[in-house]
């Protein structure tokens, strides 16, 4: 549990000697509490205090990073149960599962498609994070061939799933030097799996049927010197997964219970059919999974999940915004119209994409509405005629769009009268309400 400045102060020598560069021990303690300085700046702190402070500086949920060829996926290190309390930091990694009974060519085809999958949402390119290769054939030759086929088709991080440590070892050999996530250790095989994790310096999942079993096995694995652990509770129902993950997060974040202070992996692919799998993955994303393994990867399946992940992991204090300004779309000329919108990312991209898709040139004036949608900003007084007129002047729109036609979003048609007053030499038009209808509007009304 993080300590307050006062708690830290009590552990310092309280001599105010200034050797740390701060005027008092308390000032230094405050900086420590804010994690802005390192403890070693104070040469006088006792060994006992050092140990205590180090313990409190350890995050309640360990950060686990899966790396491969310059790609990284992080999970863990979360500090709140509910996103409105601060924010969630590390989006759950999405891994597509490949079973080793597929032929190498089929594997390569599937992996290549998922590997290159990318979709643009509010200006951000969203992708899948990696692959989970599972030994179902029982043959270590098939497993290592499957791992090799995956690695040949993608450079992204990999999770290896096998019950048998001998089979696992063959897969690890293929990825020597990479430290993939080993999935994993159960009650029967944990010692052998822990040895592999040590040998390959790789993170290890720990499975248990109950929280007691999980915590027990974590302690055993830790006893073998393993620190990078991912929890893989055995439950497969929505209710079981939800309860288990809520409790794991509560125990870690609120109780600082070290034995369960790790991210959790969810195998949504085990849900059965794609419909159930999607619901399971959606729950995992909104409720406390650090890694999610899916079997389906059709774009219409992946796209909604990847957007959900982006939404839930947006910092609630900072809406995603774009820079206010005058944007040129499809090389506009001075005779082309000006469409006006706000600088909330979702709004901007809905509109910009439609104009672009219409193929017609236009100027897009993005007013500073403090990152709010059209109606939100309007209701909050951040998107009115005065502000729009101010943007027109600030970005010198009149000199670029000499035709002086400006189009308002249909939702704020009420502003047109006032805007005419603010911009007397402009032709103020009201556009459609929804961005989808912009191309038709531009084709019919603007030409």
């Amino acid at each position, binding site marked *: 549990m993080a300590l307050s400045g006062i708690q830290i102060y009590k552990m310092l020598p309280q001599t105010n000697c200034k050797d740390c560069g701060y005027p008092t021990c308390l000032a230094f303690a405050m900086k420590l509490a804010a994690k802005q300085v390192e403890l070693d700046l104070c040469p006088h702190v006792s060994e006992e205090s050092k140990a205590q402070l180090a313990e409190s500086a350890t995050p309640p949920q360990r950060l686990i990073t899966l790396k491969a060829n310059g790609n990284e996926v992080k999970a863990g290190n979360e500090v709140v149960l509910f996103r409105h309390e601060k924010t969630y930091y590390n989006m759950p990694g999405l891994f597509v599962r490949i079973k080793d009974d597929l032929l190498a060519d089929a594997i390569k085809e599937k992996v290549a498609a998922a590997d290159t999958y990318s979709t643009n*949402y509010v200006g951000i390119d969203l992708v899948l994070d990696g692959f989970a290769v599972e030994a179902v054939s029982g043959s270590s030759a098939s497993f290592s061939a499957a791992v090799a086929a995956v690695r040949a088709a993608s450079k992204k991080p990999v999770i290896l799933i096998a019950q048998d440590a001998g089979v696992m070892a063959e897969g690890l050999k293929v990825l020597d030097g990479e430290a993939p996530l080993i999935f994993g250790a159960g009650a029967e095989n944990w010692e052998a799996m822990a040895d592999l994790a040590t040998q390959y310096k790789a993170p290890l999942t720990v499975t248990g049927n109950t929280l007691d079993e999980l915590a027990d096995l974590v302690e055993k694995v830790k006893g073998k010197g393993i620190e990078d652990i991912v929890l893989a509770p055995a439950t497969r129902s929505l209710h079981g997964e939800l309860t288990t993950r809520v409790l794991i997060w509560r125990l870690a974040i609120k109780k600082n219970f070290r034995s369960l202070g790790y991210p959790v992996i969810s195998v949504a692919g085990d849900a059965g059919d794609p*419909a159930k799998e999607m619901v399971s993955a959606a*729950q995992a994303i909104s409720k406390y999974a650090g890694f999610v393994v899916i079997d389906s990867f059709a774009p219409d399946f992946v796209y909604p999940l990847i957007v*959900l992940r982006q*939404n839930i992991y947006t910092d609630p204090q900072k809406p995603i915004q774009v820079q206010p300004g005058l944007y040129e779309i499809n090389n506009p000329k001075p005779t082309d119209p000006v469409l006006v919108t706000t600088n909330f990312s979702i709004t901007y991209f809905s509109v910009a994409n439609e104009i672009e898709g219409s193929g017609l040139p236009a100027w897009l004036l993005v007013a500073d509405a403090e990152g709010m*949608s059209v109606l939100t900003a309007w209701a909050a007084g951040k998107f009115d005629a005065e502000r729009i007129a101010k943007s027109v002047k600030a970005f010198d729109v009149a000199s670029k769009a000499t035709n002086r036609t400006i189009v308002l979003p249909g939702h704020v048609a009420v502003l047109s009268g006032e805007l005419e007053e603010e911009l007397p030499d402009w032709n103020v038009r009201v556009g459609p309400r929804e961005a*989808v209808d912009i191309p038709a509007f531009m084709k019919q009304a603007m030409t």
Partner: protein
Amino acid sequence: MPVEIPKDKWNGQVRVVTLGATADQGGTRTSTVTVGGETTMPFMHFEGEIPHRPVIALEIKDRRPDDWSSLLLDLWSDKADDPAVWAKAAEEAGADLIQLSLSLTNADGNPTTPEAAVDAVKKVLAATGLPLLVFGPGQADVDNELLVAVAEATKGERLVLGICEDKNYRTIVATAMANDHLVIARCPMDVNLSKQLNILISDMGLPLDRVLMDPTTGALGYGIEYGFSVMERLRMAALQGDAMTQLPMIVTPGFEAWKTKESKVGVDVPESWGDWEQRAINWETITAVALLESGADILVLRHPESLKRVRAAIEDLMTAPETV
């Protein structure tokens, strides 16, 4: 190592609200629906009571809508031409409730009259025994005119009248009081505004066990994170004992999701969006599931396949885990 299960202690409870009235209760419904009563956060069976499962309504309109996705219109086909037939089909598709949304204009483009609204509601009541929610077209003066007529013509049915907003609640609340109906209080994603509106409604004398609360949610990709968080905050406030937030929450993922380009449009969209129909169903389902996880008691959907998927999720989530 026995792990001590950390239980949150709550002292508040969501109110229990019953929708619809049977013949003995002064209405004509063959069944009623009861929601609310939770004493814990969504599906945390190990630390509190969740006496009533979240329920699903399907939305229908008084006439074939002009602005719905063609996927939905093709699916309901000519059933959408008659609210009675449509309601029956929605019941057969597994809905617990029907939401009838009144249109601003009739098929000829003339304003919907109170008589036509009453007629549509009566037809639906005759076609199905399920409890009914009736929504106005969403323009204050028209809503008032149509909903008052509907409320009076269906006295005692315990319909749910949608929707009351800060600028337009008095008339609807008054007619709900006079005619034994329920109302929905809708606020734009703000805990304090929700509380205020609930206070205003309760000050008029409508008992709070006849009020549902719609926090407004947004769709997946279009603001759902705000809805998700405001619902979690509202539910926490309710469980902490704040009486004016202790109302069951109704959300409209069908309306929200089917408004988005992802659901509405099948051509000229990025290849990375995939198959249109599946994407649209997934959009609605995921919007609904995210809201279910954050505290929804009533979900209003539009597509029967989404209903099937969300229903399966509810069944699963309402089972208490045997061991943790």
